[in-house]
Structure formats: structure tokens, C-alpha cells
């Protein structure tokens, strides 16, 4: 987490109805932790310490326990990510069907190593583990959407069409 976040001390959910709905679905408060983090990340792009404190207050647990979740799950980010997260599956079935070339291609195209974001903040390249779609390998998830069985040419067309 950058220093900036430590000084950023307030976070408020813009959709308080959604927060209420989340709590109404669980028998206890702590079970709402993951859905609250998902909701906050959708709003803020990544998890700041202000979000952690807010979630901790709402769920009545220690901020360290919320932090524990943020660091454990790969889908929660502690840093700003690019507008588009290019998540390339690198597990066996994808790797046997060209995933490694896709990573190399993106690395060259944008000059970003896995984990890095382009300087304009548009793309972040991420290597991820099996996305549960091995039959359509290679699989790349861009933000919430799966793109399956793309050749490098098709991938280029897709990437170049992103405004």
C-alpha cells in the first residue's frame, strides 16, 4: 500500500442499499466481509486502508482481519490497476495451447512485464492460474469477461479495438 492510502482516512459506500442487502443475506456480520470488499473495489478500483477500516467497522472485526483477506485473495488489489486487466491463464492446458506466446506478445506489444501497468495506466498484464475454461484454451480474462481460444492475431484486433 502506498503512503497516500495511509493518510486517506475516509471511505463511504455510494450504494448503501447494496450494503444493507448484503448484511440481510447472512446470519452474522463477518460473513459479509468478502462481498463488502468486492463492492468497495468495484467503487474504488483497489482496496485502500480506508476501505479496510470501513469494512472492519461494519463487520465488527479487527482491521487486521480484513487485511488478512485482502492479502490472501488474488482478486483483491492493494494498488491501482490499469483500466483493463489482461489476465492470461498460464496453467497447463492453456500453456500447452499457446498461453506463453500470448504473455510474450503482450509483453512486447506494451513493454510491460507480468504484474506491470502501461505508463498511460490503460493495461495491466497479469498471469493467473486456471480460469476453469481449459477446453477453450488459451484463455484470457479482460476485467470481467472471458476471451477464449484467441489467436495472437485475434487478440491484437481485440486489444486494438479498446478505446
Amino acid at each position, binding site marked *: 500500500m502506498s503512503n497516500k492510502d495511509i493518510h486517506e482516512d475516509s471511505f463511504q459506500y455510494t450504494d448503501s442499499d447494496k450494503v444493507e442487502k448484503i448484511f440481510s*443475506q*447472512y*446470519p*452474522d456480520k*463477518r*460473513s*459479509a*466481509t*468478502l*462481498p463488502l*470488499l*468486492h463492492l468497495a473495489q468495484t467503487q474504488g478500483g483497489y482496496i485502500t486502508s480506508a476501505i479496510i477500516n470501513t469494512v472492519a467497522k461494519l*463487520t465488527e*472485526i479487527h482491521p487486521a*482481519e480484513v487485511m*488478512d*483477506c485482502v492479502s*490472501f*485473495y*488474488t*482478486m*483483491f488489489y492493494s494498488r491501482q490497476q490499469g483500466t483493463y486487466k489482461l489476465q492470461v491463464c*498460464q*496453467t*497447463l*492446458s492453456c*500453456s*500447452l*495451447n499457446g498461453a506463453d506466446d500470448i504473455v510474450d506478445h503482450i509483453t512486447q506489444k506494451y513493454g510491460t512485464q507480468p504484474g506491470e501497468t502501461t505508463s498511460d495506466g490503460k493495461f495491466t498484464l497479469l498471469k*493467473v*492460474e*486456471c*480460469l*476453469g*475454461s*481449459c*477446453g*477453450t*484454451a488459451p484463455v484470457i*480474462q479482460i476485467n*470481467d*469477461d*472471458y476471451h477464449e481460444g484467441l489467436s495472437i492475431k485475434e487478440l491484437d484486433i481485440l486489444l486494438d479495438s479498446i478505446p
Partner: protein
Amino acid sequence: MSTFEPVLTSNITKENSHTLDFYQSIGGYSAIKKVLSMSPLEVIDVVKASNLRGRGGAGFPTGLKWSFVPKDSEKPIYLINNADESEPGTFKDRLLMNKAPHQMLEGMIIASYAIGCHTSFIYIRGEFYREYMLLEKVVAEAYENNLLGDNILGSDYSLDVVIHRGAGAYICGEETGLIESLEGKRGWPRIKPPFPAIEGYLQCPTVVNNVETLSCLPHIITRGADWFQSIGPEKGPGPRLFCVSGRVKNPGVFEEPMGIDLKDLIFEKAGGITNDNKLKAVFPGGSSSAILTAAEAIDVKMDFEELAKKKTMLGSAGVIVMDETVDMVHACLNIARFYAHESCGQCTPCREGTTWLVKMLTRMVKGRGTLKDINMLFEITDNIGGLIDFSKGSYGKTICPFGEAVAWPIRSFVEKFKDEFIKYLPQEKVAA
């Protein structure tokens, strides 16, 4: 075998197969009408008689698992639908959720009724965002039509269904890791016993079942236990979704009876090997199963017992095919890296062992390995997953079966393709 008609996927190619209208037009939700007129015990007995075994990986008999839930529980009882689908090589639950979500939901209602549950969760992996959005709609549709909520179809049975998203962690597919995650913690598996059926979510009796397992239930209720039992091998019958991926021409999900020949899956259903290359090795049941050599693979049935005899397992029925172009040391490293990344880290043999496996295999592919390293690979896998002697069972050195899930495949690579590992050694070290 040619007479087999798909059961779970019979309608997935039809337009709008995911809608309530469509599902009802093919007789959907008639099973819950029948179930609501039965006693919960009668439902459990039918499922027991069907011999349905779990499709998530462990293959535990479903009816038997349900019967462990205390009958006189004063605490609430929970059912969790395991839609975490994260075992490499497995991609069937996503298909069922996209194309036949009401079939799965009807299965959840049947299971919940049988065990006395009134709040049921769908734990769906976080990456399946589109499927999550679809399920939100499906569940809302069910509420609007009194298939969920208070007094379902005018009965005195009520059930709520809540969809809970994971956030990227393979270990949350393991049932106790999943429960911890649902409770808002990191997904650290629990020591068993107590089993979830006694103390699960919030220390209450909890049953965890896989998407495909639940999707079988409406059919068992409608067509009867005998019908289900008559499909495939007696000890593990029924239709099964086999996922075939890797180096095949026509990868995909194939619904076939349990016990189908692995060679038919690869060479007929999946169209044979890419470029007509030679088959080299196969994971029969997801990346956690020991690999089979080509010779072993063409002579085995996809059945719990038969695969156990070959010292591997049916697991999640995720078949990953490797052909002659595949470098086995690289493939082994790919799998080791997966497990090192996904180890939850609470057991030392698993956390340290997986890291070491990656270090040593990386060293090996860079041509800096030694003969001693090869023996060390065996030692490390034994240390994580126990000695792999099926007659003695596993030694259980770790809290959850992830330990064995690493040890079996890695060991099988080194054991069955040792010559390829040796080829990576620098010449002078082979001689030494």
C-alpha cells in the same frame, strides 16, 4: 454404450435453455413437487439407493453424507453448492451454470429439503462474474415464482438461496477452506474431524455438494434410483461430465456414462490428438491426479475403482492430454508452480515443499540440476503427501488433501518419465 442419452446436458444447445420458461417447458421443477410430498428421510433414501457419488473430486456417496447431519439439530443447517470450479482441467460446472442453471437450483432445493436446510449458499469462484450475474437473475426468477422463499409452492417448506462470490483462491474449493472463506476469513482448511456435517459454517451442520452432483438430483427424483443405478458401473453409476483439454483436436465437455473407456474419450469424443501426434501422457481426473502413460491410458475405464487400481483417481473427471511435443519436465514445473502459488500456507510441508519443488524444477530446466535433485524430488513429495502406498493409505502430513494433490502428480511425472528428467542434467553430473 451407444444407447446412452445425455441427462444433464440434453438441452444445452437449445436457445434460452437457461430460462425458467424453458426449464418448465421440459418438465423442470416437477421433481420438487414430488419431493415436497415426501418426507426428508424418504428423499435421502432415494438418493442413497441411487448410489450417486460426489462429482466435486472426492467421490463421496451423497446420500450417506446427508445422513450424517444430526436429525435433532437445534442449530440451523446449511447447504453450500460448491461452484468454485478451480481444479486445472475442469470446466463443466461453468457450462451447467450457464446453460442449465435452473436444473442446478432445483437440485439445491431437493438437497436442502432433505437435510432440513432453510438458507443455502452458492459459493461461486470470483472470476465467474458473468455466471454470477446470470445466477442472480435465475434466483430472482425462482423467488418470483414461489420456487424459493416462504412456503414454496404452497407447502410449509421455506428456503432462501444466497450467492456468494469467492475472490481468487484454489483452496476455497476444498470444503472447509470454502467454509472459512464464506465466514469472511482467508480460506484456511480446518482439521477434520469435526466434519462439516456436524460442525461447518458458523459451527452449524453443513453439507457441501458440487454443482454437477446437485444437478443430478432432479433426474434421480423424477426417474428413480433404479434408473440412475443402471447407468455405468454399480459402485459409482450415473451420467458424468468429462472435460477433455490439452493436446486434442476437439476439446470440450462430454456427457457420458461413468466407466467409459478413457481412450474413447480422447480418440472419439475429443477427436484424437492435435496434428495426429502420438499420445504421451494423461491426467485422468484433474491436475491433482497422478498421470497415466499412453500405454496405461488406452487401457483404462473412467471409473472410481479402476483408476484407483492404477494408483490414480477419477477426481473431477478433468482429462488433460499431453502428446509427444510436450516436455514433461516443463509440464511438471507448470503444475508445481500452480500448487506453490495456491498453497494456503498453513502447513509447513506444503508451504515449504511446494516452493522447493518449483526451485528445483526451475534449476533443472535451466540445466543446473543434479542426479541427487531427482531423488530429492521424491523425498519432498513424500514429505508433503505421505508415502504413496495405496495399501497403507496416506500418512496425512497436512491439514487438507491438497498435500496429496501436489505429491501424486509430481511424483508420477518423475517416476514415469525419469529419463526426460535425466536428459536435463548436465553431462558431467550424469556420469558422476
